[in-house]
């Protein structure tokens, strides 16, 4: 791994691009959602304005050290996922700090922010936060099952745990992408992605009209700004992870932007069509078809 200052600065620049693309993506998606229901929707620059306002607000309360650390951990989850993920295939500048075992570390970082947020929101002491946290952790445990099965299947298929090598193995044309060579793993992972992005059938964690907004109920101002920044990073980084694993990676930023947008849009599209699941329904749902697909994907390659 390269530890030079130049590499660090390039990674920071990548993080900056990814954060801004994440915010532009979220406003674009919200505008599309608005057009679907016949509205005009928010201006495209709304996320930046919201973020500026949030960072300028005065903090109202503190509930202790862990309350402060919750959003920091959450942000670290997103940034950590980005740090070890090669964004552009074959590029020294945009491969970040990826190494031979990065896939395992990235799976861990997906859960890391969630756990930090659970501790922070728990210290907030609001009953709705606690309900949101317990729902979130229950759901995420079951999301991880098909996701991990799919990743194991890919590791068996390509004999590697390095994302760069997985992307390299998919180069050579449209039909060498994992989505064609290993459709069952792709299916399992894309279904679990619906839960990871937290759009409609699986958004009971934050369910704004039932448990006023779940874990972040007590978070305001800078804390909420942190959570929103993390959302922007996490959405792009997670979509980029799936792009690398299943859709042939990207060789330039335009390709990355198009592919991450489409992968993110998949979860939004499903969310527009289907209503919200109760928590026991979503837990059972992940343990049925997605898990079966994951097991099938492993059995095929054994």
């Amino acid at each position, binding site marked *: 791994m390269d530890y030079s200052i130049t590499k660090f600065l390039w990674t920071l620049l990548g993080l900056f691009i990814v954060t801004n693309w994440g915010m532009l993506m979220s406003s674009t998606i919200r505008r599309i959602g608005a057009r679907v229901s016949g509205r005009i929707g*928010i201006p495209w620059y709304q996320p930046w304005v919201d973020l*500026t306002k949030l960072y*300028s607000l*005065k903090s*109202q309360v503190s509930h202790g050290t862990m309350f402060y650390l919750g959003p920091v951990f959450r942000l670290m989850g997103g940034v950590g996922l980005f740090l070890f993920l090669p964004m552009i295939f074959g590029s020294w500048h945009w491969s970040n700090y990826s190494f031979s075992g990065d896939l395992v570390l990235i799976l861990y970082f997906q859960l890391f922010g969630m756990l930090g947020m659970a501790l922070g929101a728990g210290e907030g002491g609001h009953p709705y936060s606690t309900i949101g946290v317990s729902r979130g952790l229950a759901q995420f445990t079951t999301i991880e099952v098909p996701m991990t099965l799919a990743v194991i299947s890919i590791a068996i298929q390509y004999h590697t745990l390095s994302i760069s090598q997985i992307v390299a193995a998919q180069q050579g044309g449209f039909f060498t992408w994992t989505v064609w060579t290993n459709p069952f793993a792709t299916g399992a992972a894309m279904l679990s992605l619906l839960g990871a992005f937290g759009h409609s059938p699986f958004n009971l964690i934050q369910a704004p*009209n039932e448990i006023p*907004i779940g874990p972040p*109920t007590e*978070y305001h101002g800078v804390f*909420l700004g942190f959570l929103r920044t993390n959302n922007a990073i996490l959405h792009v980084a997670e979509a980029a992870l799936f792009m690398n694993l299943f859709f042939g990676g990207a060789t330039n930023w335009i390709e990355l932007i198009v592919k991450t947008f489409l992968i993110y849009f998949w979860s939004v599209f499903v969310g527009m069509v289907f209503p919200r699941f109760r928590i026991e329904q979503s837990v059972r749902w992940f343990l049925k078809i997605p898990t079966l697909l994951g097991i099938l994907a492993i059995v095929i390659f054994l």
Partner: protein
Amino acid sequence: MEKENKPQDIPVVKTKNFIAPENEKRTVTAPDGSLIEVDPINDYFCQERPEEYKVKSGAVEKFLNWARAESLWVLGFGTGCGSIEIPPLVTPRFDMYRYGVQMRPTPRQSNVFIISGYLSVKTLKRAIRSYEQMPSPKYVIGLGSCTINGGMYWDSYNTINRLDHYLPVDVYIAGCMPRPEALLAGFAKLKELIKAGKAEKANEYIRNLDWYKANQKKIIKDWNMPDYNW
């Protein structure tokens, strides 16, 4: 609008006159038989007085004011009949999102509090709690004539007449009931005020806290909360 009662006209009422029975200092017996002194107001609540929001210098404050004006997050709290005028704002016909106005479910994340109509004494208490929990800078919109002079409830035994005796109001929207267009016009006016740096009522509330508290405590008899709800 000129205030009928200037801040100095009403004598400051001491907190301890209003402590509810469940919040009084008392001795309780623990399960193991020992006696414990309990003082709920001091043990469970923060007693700090709030501070005014400090205005930043020149261009920075102007930029922040622009951001605040373009990102109004409204607390989903409906009182009276006016709350039925708020849901149409998210429909295609009125679509408040294009003006940067969004709904938030919790006071911690909102900046704008719409008092949408008459405020009964019971709701006033909740409105005060919610308002004080919102982070500064924050704004209040009084919707409908009930918030201005009581409207058709002016002689009711259970509603307040003038909202600005109890909460600081930045913008009033007159009418009974004002239509959603009027509410949008109110948002536009509020944006204008914020951008001009004139929406400073939250600071006025903190400056005249004693006067507001005296007014509130005159109406709310079962005051079982701290003086300022952090």
